[in-house]
Every structure is written in C-alpha cells, then in structure tokens.
C-alpha cells in the first residue's frame, strides 16, 4: 500500500524529467552546438532596453548572434573567472567601471582607430580597449512646489544648505551614485570628497533602493530633491505622459561633479574567434540608426556627433560636456565604497 502511493508520484516525476530532458535537447538547437561561427555577446544591459538592438545585429554582422543577459558586474566577474576559456566575443556593459576592470585585466583587445574616432575622446578608453555606446547625465529631480527657485541651484554644494535637511532623496547602493562619488573623489581629492560626504550625511538624506524609487519619492512630494540619472525622468514622462509627472529635472553646472556623464559601452574580448564580426558589431552600435534608437527609445545620450533625439527634448551632450574625468577612474570603486562606509552613507 505504502509503496504504491509513493511509487506513482515518483514515476510521474521521473518520466516528466526524462521527457523534459529529451525535450530540451531536441527543442533547442542552439543548446548543443558549439559556438563556432556564432557571435556570443555578454550583455550587462537590460534585455528590455537593448534587446531590439541586438536582434538587428544578426543582419549587420552576417553570422548568428547569441546574447547572454545578466547584471553588468556579475558578467564582468564571470568573464574574469572564465579567463581565456570564455566563449564570449563581445562585452556590452552599462558602466565604464566594469569596462575599465576588464580592460585592466587584459580581457579586452584594442579596437580599430576608425571605430574609436566616431566617438569623442572623453567617452572612450585612452588605450582604445572600449568605447562608449551611449551616455547618461546625473541630474537633480525636484518637486516644483517645494523648490520654486531651482535655477539658483548650480552645484552640489548648495545641497548642503540647512533648508534641504531631510529633504533629499538618493540611492546609496546604486552604481550611478557610486560613480558620482568616484567623480567627486577624482575632482576634489579624497579629503575634499570626505568633507562633502560628511556634510551631506549630516543633512539626513533619505535613502531609497534605486533611482526609480527616488523619482517616485520626489514625484509624491516625500522629498524635495533627488539625485538620479536623467533618463529615468524621460522614460517616466514617456510612459505616463509628461503632464502626469509632478517631478521635474534640473542639470547642474557643467564643471560640477554632480553633473557627471557616465556611459554604457562595449569592448571586444581578447582571444575572440570572431574578430571581424565583433568589430562590425561595435561599428553597428555606433551607427546613426542605433544611436538614434538610444536617443529615441531609452532617452540616453547618443555619443556620435550629429545624432539628436527626435522624441525627447534632451539638451545636447556637447553643451553639457559634463564633469571631465577619465572614465577609467570609475574603476576605483572599492575606494569609493570604503569612503562611503567611513562617512556612514550606505
């Protein structure tokens, strides 16, 4: 009696699993093949944002393309772990820090000068190992009711004024915030950065999980100001209609660390078996068509001259030209995190 009761579920389970195993082997032709003749991309950018671009890539490079999506830092760690044995041909990451780390570990191979020249020197590796594909600006989101005179705020030092105590939202665990702090360190030195961060921490800023939550808080009037990336606001406005978003955004002065321009970018993996296809893929990401896509769909800044968003009213990148730091410096994230630890902003 006991046996039969248990035997049935066990048998069902085994049969299902066996069928499933067969099914997965037969039904997924890509699974068993080796990667010869395929361009393998590790994408740390979200599939919802770049999926449509990478779908078109197959036509552009002329060979089949397979994309592996995960977090930028997870994929960078995976690539470092795989080393020379990796199947990946191209890395597409959402921040310069990960690209810098891969470049310094010798995982990226220099790109053609022709491709590099498409992009301003500020937005590529000085040794040519990676190139930006789109940019994003740090901005202040604000609630117009609580901050009627937003134009008087031109730099991050004004955020330290007593009237903003408890009224600033930020995302302390977010990579973009970390990049801003790194820029602050590069701009003002370790002591200068610590001084600002300590004063900022004393302002009782409100911590949120991510930029979207910060924008939500500003929109709901919970805080007056929020430190976010520009495109979150544009995407929100596109999704629900600009008239339904109470929050507005404000760009700080160009020379202020609070106006950092960070980038998403790509590099070719050293030892790729598809160097030509990988080079074509990078050129494709920098083509007018795809730059236009980033500008129109994700509200990011195109990095190739002459492309402007037809949908969003973005101030041109050349006018911002943000805070000029070597984006490779964004790799020094461990020191940034240590500093944030020290001042208690985590």
């Amino acid at each position, binding site marked *: *009696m*006991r*046996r039969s*009761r*248990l035997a049935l*579920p*066990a048998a069902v*389970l*085994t049969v*299902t*699993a066996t069928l*499933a*195993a067969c*099914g*997965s082997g037969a039904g*997924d032709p*890509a*699974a*068993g093949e080796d990667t010869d003749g395929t361009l*393998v991309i590790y994408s740390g950018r*979200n599939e*919802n*944002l770049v999926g449509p671009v990478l779908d078109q890539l197959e036509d552009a490079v002329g060979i089949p393309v*397979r*994309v*592996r*999506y995960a*977090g930028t*830092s*997870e994929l*960078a*760690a*995976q690539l*470092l*772990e*795989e*080393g020379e*044995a*990796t*199947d990946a041909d191209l890395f597409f990451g959402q921040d310069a820090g*990960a690209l810098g780390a*891969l470049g310094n570990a010798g995982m990226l191979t220099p790109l053609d000068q022709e491709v590099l020249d498409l992009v301003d020197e500020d937005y590529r590796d000085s040794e040519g190992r990676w190139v930006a594909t789109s940019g994003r600006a740090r901005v202040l989101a604000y609630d117009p009711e609580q901050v009627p005179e937003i134009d008087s705020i031109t730099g991050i030092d004004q955020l330290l004024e007593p009237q903003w105590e408890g009224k600033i939202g930020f995302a302390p*665990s977010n990579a973009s915030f*970390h990049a801003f702090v790194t820029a602050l360190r590069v701009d003002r030195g370790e002591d200068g950065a610590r001084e600002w961060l300590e004063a900022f921490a004393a302002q009782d800023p409100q911590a*949120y*999980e991510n930029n*979207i*939550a910060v924008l*939500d*808080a500003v929109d*709901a009037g919970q805080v007056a100001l929020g430190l976010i990336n520009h495109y*979150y606001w544009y995407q929100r406005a596109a*999704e*629900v209609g600009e008239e339904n978003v109470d929050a507005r955004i404000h760009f700080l002065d160009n020379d202020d660390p609070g106006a950092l321009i960070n980038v998403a970018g790509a590099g070719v993996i050293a030892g790729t078996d598809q160097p030509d296809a990988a080079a074509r893929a990078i050129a494709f990401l920098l083509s007018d068509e795809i730059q236009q896509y980033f500008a129109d769909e994700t509200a990011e800044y195109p990095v190739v001259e002459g492309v402007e968003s037809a949908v969003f009213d973005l101030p041109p990148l050349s006018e911002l030209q943000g805070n000029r730091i070597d984006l490779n410096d964004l790799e020094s*994230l*461990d020191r*940034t*995190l240590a500093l944030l630890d020290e001042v*208690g902003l*985590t």
Partner: protein
Amino acid sequence: MVRAGESGWATAWEIVVRERTLRLVLRSLGLTAAVTAACLVIGIGLAWLTTRTDLPVRRTFGVVAALPLAVPSYVAAYAWISTFPNLAGFWGTLLVLVACTYPYVYLPVVAALRRADPSLEEVSRSLGRSSLTTFLRVTIPQIRPAAAAGGLLVALYALSDFGAPSLLRYDVFTRVIHDSYRSSFDRTPAAVLSLLLVVLTIAITVGEARSRGRAGQARVGSGVARTAAPVGLGRWKPAAALACVGVVGVSLAFPAGTLLYWLSVGSSARLDLGRLTDAATATVVVAVLGAVVTTALAIPVGILAARHSGRSARVLEQATYAGHALPGVVVALALVFLGVRYLQPIYQEVPLLVLGYAVLFLPAAVGAVRASVAQSPRRLEEVSRSLGLGSWATLRRVTVPLAGPGIATGAALVLLTAMKELPATLLLRPTGMDTLATRLWTETGSGAYAAAAPYAAALVLLAIVPAILLTRVQTRVVSRTTAAEAPAPAVAPITVAVLGPTRPTGSTGPDSPEGGAQR
C-alpha cells in the same frame, strides 16, 4: 572555496574588521532572531488553531495557511514596498520575511500535533490543569522538536536572504558580500566573507541541536493515535478566525492582489504569451531535473548519515548546512571556475545548471531523507536481513520505501526552491534560455512592474504545486496513523516533519533562500 583559499584573505580581513561589517553582522542576527521568534508564535498558533480547535472552516484554512511558501520573498517585498513606500526598514523586512517563512514552522508543527497522542492532554486536563497550562506544559513539549526544526529553516532563510532586505532597504550582512564583490569585480573577498556566513550558520545549527538537547520523547509502544476532540474556542472564536484571516491576508492575499493590480494597469503591460510559456516550460524543466538529481544524490547520503551515527556523521551533517549558507552567486561563480576549465562540454548547458541546483539544495533534501530514515525502526531492516535478503535488497525493499515521505518532502522542497532561484540561474543557464525568475529580474530591472506581473503570477502558481505536495505529505500522516493497525509492526511515526525530523536525534533540511530579486 578554492577562491577563498587563493589570495583574498587580506582584503577580506580588512572588510571583516571594519566597524560597519560587525554592525551589519549584529543587525543580521537581530533580524534573524526577530523573524524566527515571530514565525514560531504565528506558526505554532496557527497549527494549534487548525488542528485542535473548532475554528470555522479549519480544514480549508489548514491547506491555505501553507501556501505562502509559494510566494518568493522578493515578490512579496516588491508588492509591499510599491504599495506602501513607508514600509522600508526593519519592520517592513520583518513583516515580509515572517509572511513568507512562517509555513516552515507551521507545517512540521501541524504534523507533530496530529501525531501527538491527545490522551496525554486529556489526562492533564482530567487532573485539573487548565487548557492553557495543558497547552504550555503538555502540548508544547511534544511539538518542540518540530518547531525547533522549522525555526532553524526560518533562521537560515532570514540570515542569508538578500532580495527582501535590499528591496526594503534594511542593510544586512549579505549586502557586504554583494558590495565587496561588485566593487572589485573580484570573487575572492566575497568568497572569504561568505565563510563568515557559514560560521554563523553552523553556530545557529549547533544552537538548534543543543536546544533540542536531551528533551527525548521516546515512549514505549506507539500509543493510540486518534483525532483529538476539538477544543471549544467559545467567545474567542471570532478573534481567532480574524487572526487567521489576517495572517493569510498579509502573506497571500495582499501579494496576489498586488500582482492582479499590476496586471490590470500600467502601459508597460505587454504580455507576450509565447515568452511566458517558454519561460514557464524552462522553469519546470530545470526545476524538475534539479529536484530529481538532487533527490537521487540525497538518498544514499541521507541513509548513510542516518544509519551511521557518530561524530563524523554529525560533522558531515552540519557541514551540509554550511554549504547551504553560501550565497547563490558565490556557488555559481565557483561552478563557472570549475565548469569552464574541467567540464567544458556542459559549461553553460542545462546539466551544469542542474549540478548547481544540486550543490545549492542538496542539504535540504539530505535533511529530509535522513530524518525519515532515522525515524523508521532499524529493527525492520534487521528482520529483513535475518529472513535472508541481501543488503541491497533490504535497502531497496525496506529502507527506501520507509524513507518515502522524507524523499517526497526533499524533492518537493528542492522543486520549490529551484523554481525561485535567481543568481545561479543567471550565470549558469544556457545562453538565451529564460526561466520565470530571470524574466522577472529583467522586467523589474527596467522598472516594468506591469510587465513583470505575469511572470511573478506564473511563478507563484507553479510553486503552489510543490507547496501542496508538501502539505499532502503532512496530512497523509494522519490517515496513516489513524489506520495504525494496518502494517504489522506499527511503523508509527513515518511522518517526517515537513522539513525534517521530529525526534531529538533528527535534523532538518534547510530551504535555500536563493533568488532575491537580486537576491
């Protein structure tokens, strides 16, 4: 482990001695203690109400109360934080973790209560003790091992969860691991820090074993297992019913309602039915394979651990918990290291992913198998041998069938947790394959809550299957013990408390709390 041994000691030591790290360790322990205590109160309370009282619709409720197991903690956290942004912090994290994990206490305690001989309580009452004193002095000691086993699972879950605390912005130790490895793109310090988590886990496991200590419940004879006469709740009935409805409302109805709401609003809702089906199929395939392989590996290990007691067996058992405490991403990167060098043909293929699940969830399955083997009388095997069966035949015809409920429990647990697993799946899955958890990660990663809702809903619906299976394993106990005269030598407590043993010698299998939306 290899990584940990390489060179990261200095870096990791620096991180360990930082003041913030110690503070976060204390915070993690505080949260763990609070969650465990709350789960014990709620789990035991609900179990008593649904098995021993005249609560209205208690049968239906008894099943429904176990279903929150199917809700991943990161989904619940999303639901709460998106509706009540002010919930962030300690209390929100406590609420979500308790709502998602109390069934780990509830299920084994229900089983223990059903198995416990009600005549002991009747004797106590007939000797003049009040219902309350009887509950405290007679009932509680009977269910203590089961409750402790469940509490251990809750504690391990709370200690190593990353998704819910990070969504609810309560900084805990798992974040240190996450940060250290994100900041240096290096796996070594993270691996070393994980060892600290392992140490904490072992401490808790040992503590749990001590707490059960010598509180032996051995009794001679199997007693008369029959259904207890329900306790009349009297004027407390409405309050008790309300409390039950409240718990289910918070842990099940609210997340489900939020998912429905997301489904109905939001312009990012664009349901791609083909993708949903593909992801659901892939989820079922890898989770079922994971459950089968893990359980197959767990059977020999569990039997060995149960039948060869001694110091080394105990160390082995506690070591499996240690493995369980490693965050999914650390295990995944270790398997990347291993796979890309030595297992190239299956690297980034389904078999390696399944192997990853086996590493992550083996402890859960071993615990369940081990406990049920330990509870079946060794005498039966000796009789079988004395009647001329060889050791293999005895294993096949006596030991394994007796361990059936434990094996089923282990398989269901692995199935349940593998479906929800995220970090290892992201790194080890075949390129291009999506599970429900990875789709959920993609959609929420771009802020598309409405588009994420169908995947979350599908995940919860699928996870209900193993959750019900677990409940069934429990309830079957009753029908079996009530028909106690059936199979000759009363194999009385065939039950394995869902997650483990209900005898002092037993131990349990932990659920792996992997997954957190960025858990």
